[in-house]
């Protein structure tokens, strides 16, 4: 492929790519994201490739994440838009013969939520998708992430051409400022202002463009899915950013734990260079810019800007004090503009469609959409993109389908280890940057972990604090030592040895750490504890005063128990028990054998019996 050196050539190539795609009467899109791959998408892909080998009329793509991970591997047959769920390699021959060949719908592969008899065959009818509005993820299930031609066929790189040839750098900057695009990585700082500050800083020094793909929040995979599904949107955004602020070079810092995202992005960079979107004299405009990949070493703190720059330089990722702004002194102490993956992916859309279009979505102070990973004890686990301002209730119950197994909702955790837990009373809050912060949590990068009645909030708080102790770089005292003391108290409470003054002490420690830490990691670290105390003080007190864990999680405070009226005597539990703690009760006949009981002295509380019980007779209490 020769380099594209003008707008005319770009348009001609886009046209050609679109024509080639349109020539296929049928397209089969298989979700090939990390989650679907883990449950068999690779095998399904191999089966499709074998079946379709001879057929030139069908375009088969391994696409990025479709979103509805719960029922993966997912297959969509277009143009009809038929969705098949939980597809196995053995289903492929039938899909090819009946749906691809004859346009028939295979009933048994359709999505059926619950027992209400409802069946959905089309993508846009499925409730999980119906309330979403996709901007960043719009192309995810439509294009092959390894094909730049697919991206071009959908109008890819038009925004870059528009910026380079129809707009001055200042006009591009103004458009992003007018759009009020706020940083999707968690901070929520307006990207346009950041660009402006960076541009104006130290004109004598080179300026750098960096994409933060160190998505360290546990329970979050938005950026991973964007990189895996539509890498060119991020590249295009970064080039536009470089044009606006006169960026000399670009970097993307990707977690090494995301092998597929790394591979996809690496390939995308290579293609972009071949086509002339990166390198020298981009599209014949005279602009030079390239992007280099840097792989993270698995340190959560490296998501913090100043730590990330140190890591890019090949050093230990320790943050520094906030009064030195990275837009002025970032990578190699030169002006650096850092935005996260989702923020960059929004940029081409804003340039293409205009700031007014963008501000029409969402709320006045938080325009646009936000991608969330909806996980935990929820019916429809997956990746969603919704307009800002949607309520938590709509996300959890309308899109997410409510709590798994019909249990009661307890809390939703947003913002990762820096965020907080919100209770039922906060469910009608509109989701935007400011409202969640006011409620004691934060938007964060978009992880949303739903918890049911069988979750212990003290255990969750302890989990986050222990996570942060591991991840604290150790540079400043409040974070390094304070978190350790919080952990000691939380462990004590979970083990049933809590003291009456512990909750107050946690609050005191938490506010001290929050106010005195050097960087945002320490500054927000106590949030999971402070927010759970704020909304679930009763649960802390139950652990301390009554030695009870209401969620049934804290091992020291619970016992396993077989409900005699539900046990059918099948003895499955007895077979899996590793400590011989389950015995038959002589004379107590049930339909399949004798009633079983648990010897609580021998029981090690591993939970193996609960998993196998066919009648759900075993409970933790």
């Amino acid at each position, binding site marked *: 492929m020769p380099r594209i050196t003008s707008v005319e050539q770009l348009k001609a190539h886009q046209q050609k790519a679109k024509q080639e795609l349109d020539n296929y009467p049928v397209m089969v899109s298989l979700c090939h994201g990390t989650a679907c791959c*883990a449950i068999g998408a690779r095998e399904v892909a191999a089966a499709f490739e074998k079946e379709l080998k001879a057929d030139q009329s069908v375009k088969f793509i391994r696409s990025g994440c479709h979103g509805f991970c719960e029922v993966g591997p997912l297959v969509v047959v277009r143009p009809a838009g038929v969705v098949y769920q939980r597809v196995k390699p053995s289903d492929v021959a039938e899909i090819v013969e009946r749906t691809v060949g004859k346009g028939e719908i295979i009933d048994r592969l359709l999505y059926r939520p619950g027992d209400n008899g409802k069946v959905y065959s089309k993508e846009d009818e499925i409730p999980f998708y119906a309330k979403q509005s996709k901007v960043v993820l719009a192309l995810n299930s439509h294009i092959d992430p390894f094909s730049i031609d697919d991206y071009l066929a959908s109008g890819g790189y038009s925004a870059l051409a528009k910026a380079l040839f129809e707009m001055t750098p200042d006009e591009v900057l103004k458009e992003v400022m007018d759009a009020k695009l706020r940083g999707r990585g968690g901070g929520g700082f307006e990207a346009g202002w950041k660009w402006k500050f960076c541009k104006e800083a130290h004109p004598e020094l080179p300026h750098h463009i960096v994409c933060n793909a160190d998505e360290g929040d*546990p*329970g979050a995979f938005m950026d991973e899915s964007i990189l895996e599904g539509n890498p060119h949107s991020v590249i295009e955004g970064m080039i536009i950013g470089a044009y606006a602020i006169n960026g000399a070079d670009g970097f993307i810092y990707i977690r090494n734990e995301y092998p597929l995202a790394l591979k996809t992005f690496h390939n995308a960079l290579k293609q972009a260079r071949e086509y002339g979107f990166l390198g020298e004299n981009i599209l014949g405009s005279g602009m030079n810019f390239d992007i280099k990949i840097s792989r993270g*070493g698995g340190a959560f703190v490296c998501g913090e800007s100043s730590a990330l720059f140190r890591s890019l330089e090949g050093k230990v990722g320790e943050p520094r004090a906030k009064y030195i702004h990275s837009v002025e002194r970032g990578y190699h102490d030169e002006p650096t503009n850092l935005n996260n993956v989702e923020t960059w992916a929004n940029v081409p859309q804003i340039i293409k469609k205009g700031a007014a279009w963008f501000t029409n979505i969402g709320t006045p102070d938080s325009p646009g959409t936000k991608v969330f990973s909806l996980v*935990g004890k929820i019916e429809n686990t997956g990746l969603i993109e919704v307009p800002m301002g949607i309520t938590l209730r709509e996300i959890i119950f309308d899109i997410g389908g409510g709590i798994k197994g019909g249990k009661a909702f307890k809390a939703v955790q947003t913002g990762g280890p820096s965020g907080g837990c919100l209770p039922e009373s906060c469910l009608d809050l509109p989701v935007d940057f400011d409202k969640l912060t006011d409620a004691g949590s934060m938007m964060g990068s978009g992880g949303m972990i739903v918890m049911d009645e069988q979750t212990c909030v003290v255990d969750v708080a302890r989990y986050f604090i222990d996570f942060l102790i591991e991840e604290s770089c150790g540079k400043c005292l409040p974070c390094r030592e304070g978190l350790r003391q919080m952990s000691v108290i939380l462990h004590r409470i979970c083990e049933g040895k809590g003291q009456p003054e512990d909750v107050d002490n946690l609050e005191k420690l938490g506010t001290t750490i929050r106010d005195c830490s050097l960087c945002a990691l320490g500054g927000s670290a106590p949030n999971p504890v402070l927010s759970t105390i704020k909304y679930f003080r009763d649960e802390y007190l139950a652990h301390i005063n009554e030695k009870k864990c209401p969620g049934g999680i804290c091992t020291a405070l619970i016992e396993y128990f077989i409900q005699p009226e539900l046990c059918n005597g099948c003895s499955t539990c007895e077979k899996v028990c590793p400590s011989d703690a389950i015995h038959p009760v002589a004379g107590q006949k049930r339909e399949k054998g004798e009633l079983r009981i648990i010897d609580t002295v021998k029981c090690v509380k591993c*939970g193996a019996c609960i998993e196998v019980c066919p009648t759900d007779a075993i409970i933790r209490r």
Partner: protein
Amino acid sequence: METALTNTEPAVEPRTEMEKEVEALLADYDKTPEDLIMVLQDIQGKYNWLPREALEYVSRRLDVPLAQIYHIGTFYKAFSLEPRGKHILQICMGTACHVRGAMRIAEEYERQFGLKLGKTSEDGLITFERVNCLGACAIGPIVVVDGEYKGNMTVNRANAIIKRIRREDSKEAGDA
């Protein structure tokens, strides 16, 4: 020194087998101190840990003091300065996996099989590690066996993984 060391010519000729292998890994890089973390990742990818001999060579080659390499090697989670086991078993401890019971699996691994988080079993067969979210939360809890994701784990299924690894290993030992 009369001639300055340049980054394109080896400062030190690779002599040993391992040095030659490391030199081959360096081919993709500019050989500046900035490449250090990624070079270490490649070494870790090849040997499953960071052998001292390789680090000493990198130190000379990239002109970075060994102490600084040690600093990096201990700061970042991805690196191990001790040999790891024949099989790498990782458990995802992301929030979603945690609330779905990943901790119970880890506790059982320790109780039943003596596998401690962050440690290698005494026979050198299995290294058991935690990872912070693999981005496949929909199928949590997840156990990764030598890079292969096993989703929707239960205590029973997770235990079966260890039993299988041990069985296959003793079979291999028997065949040999």
